[in-house]
């Protein structure tokens, strides 16, 4: 199949889903864009207000900082899990995958309270540490950035595990055998075979996790400190508290723009891959 035929076939398969999502996503999105411009007024006032607001700039900075660090930590944690899963026999792997999925089935709100019990000043970890060292230990692990990171990576890691695992399983085992025959060391095998060939999974995982973390607000609100304010908190503030949908929509549009920019590497990767195969 040539590249052109390939993409034609792809278009045929994708179009029903695309039409549905256009209808249910694109129309409201256009409406949000319209609202952000002040409706029929078509003014950029909301955007001007945002860009000159300290509150917005600080939240934007915090949001990016938290999203990037949560994504990177999730990548490291998730990659290790995916590596381990890839080496299991299929049946055991299936069981482990269910374990990875378990946190999904618990509400984010309940998990946040559970973390208070685990990480709190009198939580499980501090109690064990106090007992081990025979002195009162009260490490501050919630109501600060650390708590936010634990809460977010707990939620995000599975989203890294699955795409990376798919990439790892797609690697031809013959490559590993060849490397082994040539007496390559495990580190060398990892850096010349495993890592580069799992890159599509990494890019897919990291971009989706980044996009998700841009919209977080329950976890920072419950586990974070006073400076851990995300843009989503601001959207909530303008939508429900001040009813200023103009501003809320403008933040939404800027968030969407960031998401689009972030998905660019994934698209670029995909294109390169297609070009490579053709």
């Amino acid at each position, binding site marked *: 199949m040539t590249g052109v035929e390939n993409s034609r076939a792809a278009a045929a398969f994708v179009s029903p889903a695309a039409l549905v999502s256009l209808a249910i996503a694109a129309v409201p999105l256009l409406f949000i864009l319209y609202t952000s411009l002040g409706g029929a007024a078509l003014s950029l006032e909301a955007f001007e207000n945002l860009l000159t*607001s*300290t*509150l917005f700039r*600080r*939240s934007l900075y915090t949001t990016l900082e938290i999203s990037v660090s949560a994504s990177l930590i999730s990548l490291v944690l998730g990659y290790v899990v995916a590596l381990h899963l890839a080496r299991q026999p299929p049946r055991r792997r299936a069981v482990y995958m269910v374990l990875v999925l378990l946190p999904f089935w618990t509400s984010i709100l309940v998990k946040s*309270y559970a973390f*208070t*019990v685990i990480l*709190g*000043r*009198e*939580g499980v970890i501090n109690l064990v540490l106090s007992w081990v060292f025979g002195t009162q230990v009260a490490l501050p692990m*919630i*109501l600060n950035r650390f708590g936010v990171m634990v809460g977010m990576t707990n939620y995000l890691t599975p989203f890294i595990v699955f795409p990376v695992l798919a990439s790892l399983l797609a690697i031809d085992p013959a490559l590993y055998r060849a490397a082994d025959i040539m007496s390559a060391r495990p580190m060398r095998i990892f850096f010349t075979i495993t890592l580069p060939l799992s890159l599509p999974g990494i890019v897919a995982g990291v971009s989706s996790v980044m996009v998700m973390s841009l919209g977080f607000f329950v976890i920072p*609100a*419950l586990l974070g*400190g*006073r*400076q851990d*304010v995300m843009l989503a908190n601001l959207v909530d*503030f303008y*939508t*429900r*508290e*001040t*009813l*200023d*949908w103009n501003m809320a929509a403008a933040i939404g549009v800027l968030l969407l723009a960031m998401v689009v920019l972030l998905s660019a590497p994934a698209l670029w990767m995909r294109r390169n891959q297609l070009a490579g195969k053709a």
Partner: protein
Amino acid sequence: MSEYETKSGLIRPSRRRLLTGGAALGIAAPFVLRNGRAQAQSKNLVFVTWGGTYRSSVEEGLIKPFMAETGINVTVIDTPDLAKVKAQVTTGNVEWDVFDAPGAMGTGGSREGYWEPLPASLFDASDLSIPATKDLVPFYTFAGGIAYDPKRHPEGKYPRNFAEYFDAKAFPGRRTFRNRPSETLEAALLADGVPPSKLYPLDVDRAFKALDRIKPSVAKWVDSTPQTITLLQTNEVDFSYSYASRVKTTGATGAGMAFSFAQTLNGLEYLAVLKNAPNKENALKFVSYALQPARQAATMELLGNTPVSKKALPMLSAETRKWLPNMESDQNLVMDEMWWSTNYEKLSRRFKEWVLS
């Protein structure tokens, strides 16, 4: 009748099912005849209120007796949200009738013109401790103040009023505040020595200056109300700004927290009827019914908040009254929700920036 017991927030019964449900009540007919044309079109009412035990208290004390007396079928929906009111009113697609609104939501909706006017004849003005406005009627007041763990902080070791709450030297310990200017700025000014009767209009600059003093001792600016209690229970903080009715419920599980009634900030909860509500006549009837002394007493006995009906107060049990603030005390404050309705947005922005800095 079973509709209102299902999770109506998730599964909305269809209009037809509601209508058959209403008709099945049987007692509908005479009532319709007595109350004229508008009634004939509807035996239903949609009431938006809070979930969990709050909801079951309101169902028990108010909604079930209302349905039994009037034959009107009430559908209860969880979680009042002013953004949804805005969406319904501005698109002309109103689905809700009565809205259970905390102060800021009530006055905010009033400012935007989302509520129907409430005729003065609906209420016995002499019985209400706080007067109704043209489109809002107070449902009850709730007492905010200082919560503590009596086992860790016995008498004399906990701050009793806001001046002491702001005194980190005399009462060392980690504290909470709400992550919003309302209540927090009031507490700051009371702590700074402004008498409750002279608080409004708030001296905002003075309040922020007082807050600067206590900021290092605040471990959490709380967004979600239940956290005002859980942080105290897990010993994450020593003292917490919370609510008497919330603190009261901790007693049921054993290790009870305590609440200082020496000084309280009393917020208002309103009832409002949405503009162009589909069952407007029923809604007005419901709001009037909710303010009757007997209903106020039955509902507040379960909710643990202060009724606005003066006659209802002595009807409450001694146990419940123990958890209500003495509204006669000059140390207690009733919040001025009208002042907030014009100042909330600007001050929220300033407050949030101040918290971040």
